[in-house]
């Protein structure tokens, strides 16, 4: 896949120079070779720092929420998964469509910096592709004002819900043992919430002290309620960008719960792909059918 950074820099420079956007959000090379952290630029001459290498894996769309009232227009680069996050934020009406100039980048898969470090690799080719990219369904952006680069073949192979089915096959106690061993590791650092495009409330229920719906105490019970509540709030809205599971420092398989919810919603209320079409149909739990399955009579 040819390196689009040249075109990216040119376009960013033009957008800033003609004042079409107030700032650009992209990626730049970090201090270490396997880091391409997010980059925020407001001046045209800084655009030559933009890159789109193997490690430009961070989704940038949640940064739009920080300036949702600023009235600024932002030029933002989005991969396929990022663009679904953007649709999520737009559908939830957290930012206006015209406050964003979207530059789409078809993506053939990125690599996770932590994996680069832990695998002891010395250069990018020795680093395995990131887990979330192995299951990628939408490598091409679903929303954009302009696209740089040709479309890419989706490389998701195998059953999307394979891991979910593996857990479903366990007995109740085995399932509970599996999940409690994962959730007891949780540090409550809230990184999974802060990186999630579906977690875009102005004031999160967990941050409110009156009523304090979740104790700050780190114990298994509260950790489970935190993760179940967050998964439930994202139910039918999660765009499967995989960032939550990727940023978790403790390696908790957060996506396995989100994927289970997607599987159940498809099964109960009909197939639905969150964040793919920017239209007015509300997500599954935000609507109903009188013909929904009935088990409560």
């Amino acid at each position: 896949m040819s390196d689009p950074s040249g075109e990216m820099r040119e376009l960013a420079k033009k957008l800033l120079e003609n004042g079409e956007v107030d700032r650009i959000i992209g990626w730049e090379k970090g201090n270490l070779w396997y880091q391409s952290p997010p980059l925020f630029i407001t001046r045209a001459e800084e655009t030559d720092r933009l890159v789109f290498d193997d490690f430009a894996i961070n989704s940038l769309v949640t940064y739009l929420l920080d300036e949702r009232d600023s009235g600024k227009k932002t030029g933002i680069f989005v991969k396929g998964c990022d663009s679904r996050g953007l649709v999520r934020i737009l559908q939830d009406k957290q930012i206006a469509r015209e406050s964003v100039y979207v530059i789409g980048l078809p993506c053939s898969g990125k690599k996770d910096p932590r994996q680069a470090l832990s695998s002891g690799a010395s250069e990018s080719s020795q680093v395995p592709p990131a887990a979330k990219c192995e299951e990628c369904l939408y490598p091409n952006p679903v929303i954009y004002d302009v696209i740089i680069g040709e479309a890419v073949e989706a490389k998701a192979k195998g059953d999307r819900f394979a891991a979910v089915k593996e857990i479903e096959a366990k007995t109740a106690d085995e399932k509970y043992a599996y999940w409690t061993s994962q959730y007891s590791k949780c540090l409550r650092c809230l990184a999974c919430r802060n990186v999630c495009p579906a977690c875009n409330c102005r004031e999160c229920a967990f941050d409110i002290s009156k009523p304090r719906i979740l104790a700050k105490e780190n114990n298994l019970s509260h950790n489970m309620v935190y993760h179940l509540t967050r998964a439930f709030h994202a139910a039918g809205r999660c765009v499967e960008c995989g960032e939550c599971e990727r940023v978790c420092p403790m390696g908790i398989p957060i996506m396995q719960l989100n994927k289970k919810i997607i599987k159940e919603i498809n099964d109960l209320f009909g197939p639905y792909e969150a964040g793919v079409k920017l239209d007015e149909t509300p997500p599954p739990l935000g609507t109903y059918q009188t013909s929904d399955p009935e088990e409560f009579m």
Partner: protein
Amino acid sequence: MQGIAKQDLNKVLETLSGGGAALLVPMEIDGVTRFARWEQGAKTALGAGNTLLPPKEALFPQNEKVFNYEMSNEEAKIVPSAAAAEETIILGIRPCDVRAIQALDNVFLTKDYVDELYKTRRRHTLLIALGCTQPAPTCFCSSVGGDPLQAEGADIMLWDLGETYGLEALSDKGKDLLKKIDKFMSKSRGKKPAAGKFSLEVDSRGIAEKLHNMFEDPIWDRWYQKCLGCGICTFICPTCHCFDMQEKHTGQWDGYRYRCWDSCMFQEYSLMAGGHNPRPTKKERLRNRFLHKLCFFQERYGMLLCTGCGRCVRECPVGMDITKFIKEVSEVSLNE
């Protein structure tokens, strides 16, 4: 210098944990390297550089009961929690984490008030440090005044000499402990290994004095936007000591007050009841964290609050790199 053969390690651990002492060693549990209680047959991760979760947990746990209460119409009965006074040995702690514990000692044991819960644990804890022969790509202790091979403040110092562990007692308590494992020790001709080369090096001299006058510097505007405002960096940092105090009901009339780790990067950290927040956005919060690490703590306790362990550089999802920040600060020219 004396030595212990590596194949005797299990027997040494057996002896150390005999007599009911809690022996904490680095282990990998569910994919997370942390310090955990050693039992016979447990696989240690001594060679794996510093653990993801620092040994701070052993002295300053994430949750800790301060007191139980029982309310009635007449009175509030308060029963203070007794601190755990269990003999603890932390073996395999790296010099950067030993230095971090010295920072915690400054916080909890000095300046007009002594935190009894911390003090009781600290008094019953022995530190057996393991020197680092090969720093990890994200380690930078030498850049902030640390020595990878010498942990001043530990009770015993260990070095990996290949077939044997060289060791040396640094405190009286350390000497007493060595007597316990005397039968495994032999005179060792080995000498302290040379330190490996650091791939991450910055010059942090004078950083506190310089940052003192950079509160309004534009550097902060360039650094804060990419921060997610999550708590990863603070919860895996060996020197972070901020805590919150919260109430917990165990019944309608009884419960307990506990303290738990808190992160200055969280939005509600300094939010006051009336709604005023002196650090309302990520900019003020990131500034406060970097300044606390590299300036305020130095001004208050005379040591930096960053020991160069590299955990935040390794784990930050957006590559917030404190060494790059130190480098950029050294390049800023203050035109006073």
